[in-house]
Each structure stands twice: as C-alpha cells, then as structure tokens.
C-alpha cells in the first residue's frame, strides 16, 4: 500500500527556501515539492520588516558594508566567505524577485523602497542605513505568495499536506524520502537523485515564541536520527519585541520607522546600551538590554515587559533629539497616517490581540524566541556537509532556516533570514538540479518506510498514561526559562535532565485517535518527538560552549572567548548519546574585534 514516486529532485518544505529551490531546480530537473502545509501557510509568510540588500536606492550603500554588518552581527562566528557570497548576491536576488512581480513598496522615483533595520549601518559614519527592501510590513507574505505563484506558473509538482517522516540514505548517498499523506494516512516513498531540506526552524521548543505551531524542527530531527550532525545549535535568536505573553512578533521595522523602547520609569534605555544606533542595535543586544531592565526592576509595573512606543509625537520627539533626517536632509517626521501605511499589520495585531491602538498608546513587549541560527551544516551551495572537514553528502541539500551555512553565526541580522532563503534556496535548487543531471538513482532499500511505519504504529498503539500536550508544555517552559536569553550551567543541567525525563515519559504517551484520515493527534505526537530531540541537542550544545557570544549569553561566562571558542559546534546523536566536535570559522577580511553599537 505504499505508493512510489520518482523525481530527479525532491524539495521538502514549501516556505521561501523550498519554493525558491523548486523554482530553480524545476527549470532543468523533474522536481516535486512535499510540504506538510499548503505552501502559502508556510512560516515565511509571517516575516514582516524587509529583506536586506545594498541596492542603495535611497542613500549610499555597498554589499561590502552589508557583509561587514553581517559579520559583526554574527559576533564573528559567521563564515565570512559565505556571508560575502550572500551579500554580493543580494541585490541581484532582490531584482529577480521584483522581476517575478513581487510588489515592493516604491520610492517616489519608482524604485524599490528601503528602510533602516537593526545592525545595518553606513560603515563610514556608523549611522543606520536604509537597506531593508520592504512591502509594507508583510514582506515575507509577498515573497511567499510570489514564489508560490511562480511555481504554479512553471508547473512545479506539489504534494501538499504530505508529512515527510524520513530521509533514505543508501551507502552514504541520498536515495529519497518517505512521507505520509495526511488526508489518507497512506505512506508514499519518493525516490530521488537529490533531496533538498527546507523544513524551517524549531522555535516551538520555547514557551514564548513568534514561531508557528508547525515549526517543530522536523528536518533537523530527521537528519539527526540518520546519524548526521547539526551545527551551532546553541545559537537561537530571541527577538526583542514580541507582544507580551503571546510572543507574536512586532517587526524591527517599527523601530526602523522611529519607534523607541521605554522602560517602566519612562526612560529610553537603549541609549545606555548602544549609544550610537540606540534602538536599532542588533537583536541579541536589545533582547539582553530589555531583560536586564526587567531583572533590575525597571519593567513596567514590575512585570516582565517594557513599552514599545511608535506614537507619532514620540517618534518625532526622539527623531529630533537624534538629529535624524530624510534622504534630502530635512528633519525626519511622521504622521499617524504614514505609520499606518507602513506598518498596517502590526497596528492590526495590537488592536486585535491587545486592544491597544499603537498610534495613541504604547505596546507592551517582551523578547520572544524567534530564529534558529544553527541547523543542518551546509556549504554556500546548499550541499549538506557531514563532518569537521566539510565533506559533502552526495545528493543532500538544505536551505533556509533549517540550514546552517553559516551566515548568521551567533546572531542573525534583521532582514537576513529572507535574504538567506532567497539566495541559498536558489543555489541549493540549481546545485541539486545540476547534480541530478549527472547522477543516477540509488537503488531503494526493500522497505524504506518500515522504520517510520513502526515509529507511528508505536505511537498509535501506545497505551500509556502520559499526555503529549503536558510533555510539550513542560519542555517549552523549561527551555524558555533555562536555555533562553540568559543561561548558566546549573539551569542548563537542570533543563537537560528534564528533557531526558520528558523523553522517557514520551515513550508512554497515549494517542487516542486510531484513524488514518487527518490523524493530527498522531502527527503532533510525532512532531513532539522531533522537538524533544532538537531541544536536547540545543541544551547540550549550549552547556558545552563556555562563553557568551551573540544569541548565546551565559551568566557564568559573560565574555566572548575568541581564544577557545571561535569555532562552530557540530553535534551528533550516536547510540543514544550526544557527541560534540568542532570546525573552524572561515575568516577572510574581518578579524574579530569587540562589538559595539
């Protein structure tokens, strides 16, 4: 009853990276996209603020500056050859998106409009530079829609609502994937020359997160189970401005347009932490600043949040104080209406979820788990590498958030996630198609789906007493509290123990739904297994790195330690135990130095 399909290239995941890869691969290779969601439901669609590229449409800018900002943002852990590659590819990639019809906002002379974003600077003056190309505050939505539409136009084959459960490797080469069709519960084997993983991140291991329910680290967990390493898993980005309690993201674009952070005493505290760019420092810096304010009792009403103020009068007041100007040199001012046109969705979120109108009131915000810097190690062509010497695994590719190239290093710069998926999605697609042209199909093993079938049957027939929901809740809580913005040895040891306990309990969960059609309970339980696996390696990697760098801040090791830790972590799961190894960071032009904003 297993159905067999054969394609040159199979793309797993239909977010920005997956669709980009499919679009380019399908030009020369028979390509299929397998996605557990309808493509337009993918998480790329929630990206708000913009996509970074040194187009220089509004003021002087250079890919070189973008490269430096990204290296600095990564806290020098990013591989500089890959970063340079991405930043120099960026303008062309954006122009290609525009040619595909993506409706960017426009400048008065009809070019793509750009706005300032955290960490993007003019390297000469140190002032923020307008580099983020945007379509209101739904840039990701437009990218996702445009790519999906182009895929439809080019008649890419889609398998919507198919959950990929396993990767088939034969003799160290890629042979395909196994998936289950949600609507029927049937297994499908996809025999492929090349497989591209574009499965997204795993933000759902944390309690307060901006990530979708579907962000369960499926790709990372599958790869881990197949004996491949993951890279830099300790680095997770906490976005400074999530809606209090809900974690829904409020784009950095709000601060790009002049919004400021205010503590419980009514002070604009970022001038203490980043005197030059203030509220537009990079995300790790601001998240820690907010957390520090809260811990020192300057949260609002003693609660775990601060204010984000984008009321026009405040914006104008602080812009005047900073001497901010328009491109033509006149003083920068905004009206409520302009804010509404530039940030319509944010205004809407606040009205719906908080009952707060950001044009007249301040928004309560707290840092929220946002982005996975680590992931499946790849080189800059998207080829998955499996050891310290960057040995390529033939036929396997990864792109987007699930991959670690690494261009984000220890901390991703705002707008670089969309750029990452566009640039590396494209190159993974091209490379996979090229590979498929010359490669032959690997023979499939006799029953490739047997293992996952057994996995699912075990869950389905389990008669235990444990509630999967409860396990998930406990995992998210302990991960957010102990492996969150600030970390220390004691907390992380506690978290690891807790994860082990939860994994034990997970073996005894009960799935009540015994059906095959849309058995979402079963699949959620399977996803929980992935989350637990990923959470474990995140915590283990974090405990192992005894320094603070970018998104990884340890109270017991507060300083960056280039002497010992200027290297990437690789983590394997072997025989039930984690093994850690390292590989060097590629440094070309920018020797590490202290990071000040």
């Amino acid at each position: 009853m297993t159905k067999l399909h054969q394609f040159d290239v199979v793309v797993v995941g239909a977010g920005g990276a997956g669709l980009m890869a499919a679009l380019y691969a399908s030009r020369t290779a028979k390509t299929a996209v397998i996605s557990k969601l309808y493509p337009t439901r993918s998480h790329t669609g929630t990206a708000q603020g913009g996509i970074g590229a040194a187009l220089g449409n509004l003021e002087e800018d250079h890919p070189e500056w973008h490269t430096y900002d990204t290296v600095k943002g990564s806290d020098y852990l990013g591989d500089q050859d890959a970063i340079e590659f991405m930043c120099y590819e960026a303008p062309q990639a954006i122009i290609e998106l525009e040619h595909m019809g993506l409706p960017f906002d426009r400048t008065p002379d009809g070019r793509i409009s750009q706005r300032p974003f955290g960490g993007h600077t003019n390297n000469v003056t140190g002032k923020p530079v307008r580099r983020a190309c945007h379509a209101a505050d739904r840039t990701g939505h437009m990218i996702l829609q445009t790519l999906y539409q182009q895929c439809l136009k080019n008649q890419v084959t889609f398998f919507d609502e198919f959950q990929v459960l396993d990767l088939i490797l034969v003799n160290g080469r890629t042979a395909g994937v196994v998936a289950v069709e949600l609507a029927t519960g049937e297994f499908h084997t996809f025999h492929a020359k090349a497989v591209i993983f574009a499965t997204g991140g795993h933000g759902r291991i944390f309690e307060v997160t901006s990530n979708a329910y579907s962000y369960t680290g499926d790709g990372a967990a599958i790869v881990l189970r197949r004996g491949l390493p993951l890279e830099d898993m300790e680095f997770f980005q906490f976005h400074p401005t999530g809606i209090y309690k809900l974690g829904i993201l409020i784009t950095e674009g709000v601060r790009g347009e002049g919004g400021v952070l205010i503590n419980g005493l009514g002070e604009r505290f970022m001038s203490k932490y980043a005197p030059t760019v203030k509220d537009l420092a990079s995300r790790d810096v601001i998240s820690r600043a907010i957390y520090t304010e809260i811990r020192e009792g300057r949260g609002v009403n003693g609660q775990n949040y601060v204010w984000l103020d984008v009321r026009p009068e405040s914006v104008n007041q602080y812009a005047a104080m900073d001497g901010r100007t328009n491109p033509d040199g006149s003083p920068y001012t905004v009206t409520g209406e302009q804010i509404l046109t530039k940030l319509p969705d944010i205004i809407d979120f606040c009205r719906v979820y908080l009952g707060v109108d950001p044009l007249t009131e301040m928004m309560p915000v707290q840092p929220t788990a946002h982005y996975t810097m680590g992931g499946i190690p790849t080189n800059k062509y998207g080829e998955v590498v499996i050891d310290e010497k960057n040995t390529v695994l033939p036929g396997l590719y990864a792109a987007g958030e699930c991959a670690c190239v690494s261009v984000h290093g220890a901390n991703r710069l705002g707008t670089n996630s969309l750029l990452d998926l566009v640039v590396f999605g494209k190159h993974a697609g091209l490379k996979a198609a090229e590979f498929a042209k010359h490669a032959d199909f690997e023979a499939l093993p006799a029953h490739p789906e047997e293992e996952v079938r057994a996995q699912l049957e075990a869950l389905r027939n389990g008669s235990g007493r444990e509630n999967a929901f409860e396990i998930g809740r406990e995992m998210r809580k302990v991960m957010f509290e102990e492996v969150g913005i600030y970390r220390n040895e004691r907390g992380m040891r506690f978290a690891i123990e807790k994860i082990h306990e939860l994994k034990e309990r997970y073996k005894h969960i009960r799935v009540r739904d015994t059906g095959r059609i849309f058995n979402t309970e079963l699949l959620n339980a399977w996803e929980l297994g992935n989350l637990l696996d990923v959470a474990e390696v995140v915590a283990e990697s974090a405990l192992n790195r005894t320094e603070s760098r970018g998104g990884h801040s340890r109270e017991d090791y507060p300083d960056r330690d280039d002497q010992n830790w200027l290297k990437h972590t690789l983590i394997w799961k072997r025989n039930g135990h984690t093994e850690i190894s390292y590989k060097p960071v590629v440094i070309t032009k920018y020797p590490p130095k202290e990071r000040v904003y």
Partner: protein
Amino acid sequence: MQVTLKIFRYHPEVDKTFHYETYVIENAQETDRVLDLLEYVKGYYDGTLAFRRSCAHGVCGSDAMRINGQNMLACKVLVRDVGTHITVEPILGLKVIKDLITDMEPFFENYKKVLPWFINNSPLPEDGRERRQSPEERARFDDTTKCILCACCTTSCPSFWASDDYLGPAALVAAHRFIFDSRDEAAAERLKIISETSGLARCHTAFNCTLACPREIQITKAIAELKLATITGRV
C-alpha cells in the same frame, strides 16, 4: 471564566453523519484566542479533534472556520469578541473531511484558473535593475496583495454556495491583484476568464466576503472595480 464550546464533529472512519460535541472550559481568559481553546480541548479533553493551524496570528490562513455562524480565523478572534458560548463549525461549501478540516482543493483550483502569477514578457530594463512603478501605481492594487487564501470569503459567498462553477471572491481578488498591477501584461487574458458566466456577473454584492475577510480586504470594492474595468477598459 467559564467558556462553553460546541464543536462540529465528524470522523469519516467512525461516524455515519456529523454531530455536535460540547466542552466546558473552566479557566479561560477573555483574551484567549478561539484557537487556544481548540488546542486546549485537543490537549486535555479529546485528542481526536482535528483542525488545521499554523502561525496562530492571522497570517497563514490555515484555520478558517465558522465561529458562531460566521467565517473567521480561529486565531484572530478572542473570547471577548464572541462571548462565552461559542459554536465552531467547518466553513461551508467545501467537503468536510474530518471535524473542522475541509477539502481545500476546489478552492485552490478556482484560484489557479485566473492565472494568479505575474506575467510580463517584455524585455527587462537595460540597466539590469527593477521595473519602475510609482507609489501611486503600487497603491492601486495594495489591498488585494494582502490575501492569504484562507477561504473565509469564498465560503461565505451565497453565489459560491449556490453552484460549484463560480470562481468565488478569493480568485477574483487574485485576478485584481495582477490586473491592476501596472507592470503586468496579461490583464486582457484574465479579464476574459473572469467575465465568463462563472465569474464577475455572479457576484451579487451580498458583501459577506468583505465582512468575513480577516485581512480586511475590501473585496466587494475590488470586484466592482473589475466589473467596471470590463466596461471601461481602465485598469
């Protein structure tokens, strides 16, 4: 606070027909999303409850359903908006597969009929840069770029309920997004498709779509603009 949830249930492998099941949640908050309540029911009362969800803040379009008789996204409506007695049913007009999950294929098929992709076969700008478009030209179709294909509009439309050949508001919104894009060159082709009997003329301005749209797209307005475009040729 106490919230009573009455949920449409149907399991094709077990049930001959649908029925309603009622769940009482004791300590709900008025700021809870209906989606949070569904998750709670699934987690602690009945794991077999099936529904789609992903981003949980009204951007991905997975969780369109009928809440107290009206189409909404479960993640974009709070208890304080709908009260403490909440009825949740699948959207109308698409085959129910299981509980709140409907077959979305006909919906996406209609979407694909209007050529919902950018078409411009003219040579690219010689400087290798973007095609120019003024902010005014961009604003012309801004509203319809917001669509997330959740199907709230189409499945609230009496014309769509009445017969299965009507393209529906969502497909027309997609057509609008491209027809009024100054860079696109296939307006004529699309207008020909949507002016057939299965298209524009079947919009009877019942306005349900506009009221149901979680993205607040002025759908009726967009369709009216398309109708006028077939008369005046102005796009």
